[in-house]
């Protein structure tokens, strides 16, 4: 074990690896701090280049971006009241009053403390749990993998949207896009509508970039403008460390971390859900309850610890089972599979040292984030007040050119534009886009596993007689029925789920 650790840290401390880790953390802080950008868009833009790198370096860059953005999103939240990413929504609630009082630095230090706390625990969870989960999954065959893939997509549909039916529509759309082209067993083309360009299928990378990045660019001009003067008035120098603030925040950070570790490992739940639950948990303790308009350091620590722990623990199902936790993990999975790495049980055999190297990279990224995060507090007011139209123009060109560079094909650029418009339309119809992106990545593999599993088990009865498969599929059915069942119960009690949602919003 010691030798393996030494090898892993040796690889992660190589100058080139360190450069990717540092670049990833800086890019992550920047992407998180720019309202309208976010880590998913940055990773989507970088995806065509990452797949040309050594797999370790690509993973380092992407995981470091996630880690950097985990703190970067708090910078505009505290300074100008705009969450860098949706998971920082409650950091605005808890941190903006500090920014308004000129104590933004104090709030950001607590945010950095919470983020680091959550990340370190998440990294430890990854390092200790990923190998056992990989070992467990090595006992799985086609039917179990099909069931897991369906579970991932269903969980995303149930947890990422306002209704299960809309989430399921998103999953079905993603699956159907993934199934365009040759059938994985016979090679027979499907869903091509007679278009020759579709005979080979729709390339996953450009389609993902359209769904996850281009759609955000289409929406980005709508981000509320920030007055440069206003942001600079709240600008702060490097803040002093106050140990009492950290003492007050340690308990909430631990609570948030616990929530984040559990939520992050569930496919589809993601950091936003984790931060909402942590905020709610922290607010039930009387002495942590915020005074109206005063902000709350414990709440900042809890929400930031939970979203960061969730972001890191979400990598466990991504690497061990090939089931991504959130859209950023979908891009990591896409990068790995495009490079020919088969995640899950085969990963331990095909790339035995990779998981250790990833753990070491995550740990080093978290350490780098403490230093780089602290140094980024001072210039962050400039990021947060960058003109949105400039960001829209630059990212639009970066996305389109990056997609073209992927295979030097204008067809890919059209695919990106098409899926970007699809994502926009889905958003307008109240459908979450992330489940569609997940289905786009998993759909083809799910079909292949289902059909090979049916051949292997001699039909549906044999397929369903496998205990693990049956158990997972029962969970899938329960997930699908939970939403409608709760809605019926609420309706019978004389109120609608919408009322509950409104109350939750009011509370927040």
């Amino acid at each position, binding site marked *: 074990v010691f030798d393996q650790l030494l090898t892993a840290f040796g690889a992660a401390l190589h100058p080139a690896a360190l450069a990717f880790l540092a670049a990833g953390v800086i890019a992550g802080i920047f992407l998180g701090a720019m309202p309208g950008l976010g880590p998913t868009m940055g990773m989507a833009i970088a995806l065509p280049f990452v797949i040309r790198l050594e797999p370790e370096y690509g993973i380092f860059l992407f995981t470091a971006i996630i880690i950097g953005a985990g703190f970067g999103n708090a910078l505009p939240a505290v300074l100008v009241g705009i969450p860098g990413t949706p998971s920082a929504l409650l950091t605005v609630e808890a941190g903006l009053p500090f920014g308004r009082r000129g104590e933004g630095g104090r709030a950001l230090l607590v945010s950095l403390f919470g983020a680091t706390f959550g990340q370190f625990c998440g990294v430890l969870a990854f390092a200790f749990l990923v190998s056992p989960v990989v070992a467990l999954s090595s006992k799985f065959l086609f039917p179990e993998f099909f069931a897991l893939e369906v579970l991932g997509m269903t969980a995303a549909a149930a947890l990422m949207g306002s209704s299960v039916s809309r989430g399921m529509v998103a999953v079905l759309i993603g699956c159907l896009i993934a199934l365009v082209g040759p059938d994985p067993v016979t090679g027979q083309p499907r869903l091509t509508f007679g278009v020759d360009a579709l005979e080979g299928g729709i390339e996953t990378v450009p389609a993902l970039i359209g769904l996850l990045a281009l759609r955000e660019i*289409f929406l980005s001009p709508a981000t509320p403008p920030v007055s440069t003067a206003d942001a600079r008035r709240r600008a702060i120098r490097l803040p002093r460390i106050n140990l009492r603030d950290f003492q007050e925040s340690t308990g909430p950070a631990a609570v948030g971390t616990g929530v984040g570790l559990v939520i992050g490992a569930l496919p589809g739940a993601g950091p936003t859900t984790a931060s909402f639950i942590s905020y709610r948990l922290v607010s039930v303790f009387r002495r942590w309850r915020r005074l109206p308009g005063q902000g709350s350091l414990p709440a900042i620590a809890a929400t930031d610890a939970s979203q960061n722990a969730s972001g890191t623990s979400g990598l466990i199902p991504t690497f061990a089972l090939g089931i991504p936790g959130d859209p950023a993990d979908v891009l990591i999975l896409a990068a790995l599979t495009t490079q020919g790495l088969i995640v899950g049980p085969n990963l331990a055999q095909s790339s035995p040292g990779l998981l250790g190297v990833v753990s070491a990279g995550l740990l080093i990224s978290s350490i780098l984030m403490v230093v780089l995060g602290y140094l980024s507090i001072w210039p962050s007011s400039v990021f947060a007040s960058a003109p949105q139209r400039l960001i829209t123009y630059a990212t639009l060109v970066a996305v389109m050119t990056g997609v073209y560079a992927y295979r030097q094909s*204008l067809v890919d650029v059209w695919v990106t534009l098409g899926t970007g418009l699809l994502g926009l339309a889905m*958003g307008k119809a109240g*459908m979450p886009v992330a489940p569609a992106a997940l289905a786009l990545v998993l759909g083809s593999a799910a079909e292949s596993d289902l059909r090979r599993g049916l051949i292997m088990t001699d039909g549906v009865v044999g397929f369903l007689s496998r205990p693990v498969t049956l158990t997972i599929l029962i969970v899938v059915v329960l997930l699908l029925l939970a939403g409608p069942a709760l809605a019926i119960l609420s309706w019978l009690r004389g109120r609608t789920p919408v*009322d509950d949602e409104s109350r939750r919003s009011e509370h927040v």
Partner: protein
Amino acid sequence: MSRRVRVAGPVVIAIGLVLLFELRSTPRVPVEDPLGPYGLPRVLAAGLVLSGVAMLIPARRPDPSAGLETESPDAEPNSRRRLALSPSAITVIAAACYVIALNKLGFIVATVLLGLLLLPALGAKSWRSIMAIPLVMTLVFLLVFSVALDVHLPTFLGR
């Protein structure tokens, strides 16, 4: 029933029906499994039709919260959407025109033109910025993609 469900439900049903029509005849290829190449796509397309119907059904009963719309984490807030409509539409049109221009005019001309048209359309006032930003951005992207990454970007009229 909210307006977006009134529109989205029938659209989802229509897409599902179009896909089922495309998958109407089973290809004659030897298959070992009971599903075959069209089995799963048919199930998913039928699922799309049923989901579209499910989106419309709850609206048939009296809805005391009519007018209130729950927001998914992905959906943009109402206030943002009201503000966004016009700039988002401008960005969509600009993106489509940019893809067409990339093919015909090449990377340099298309990227500069995009900046010259998009920046003022999104509210840029200073002509100095409107002229300088597209030129600087194009140069930066050209250096990154063409020089550093050796990508053969589209050229003017394919020359």
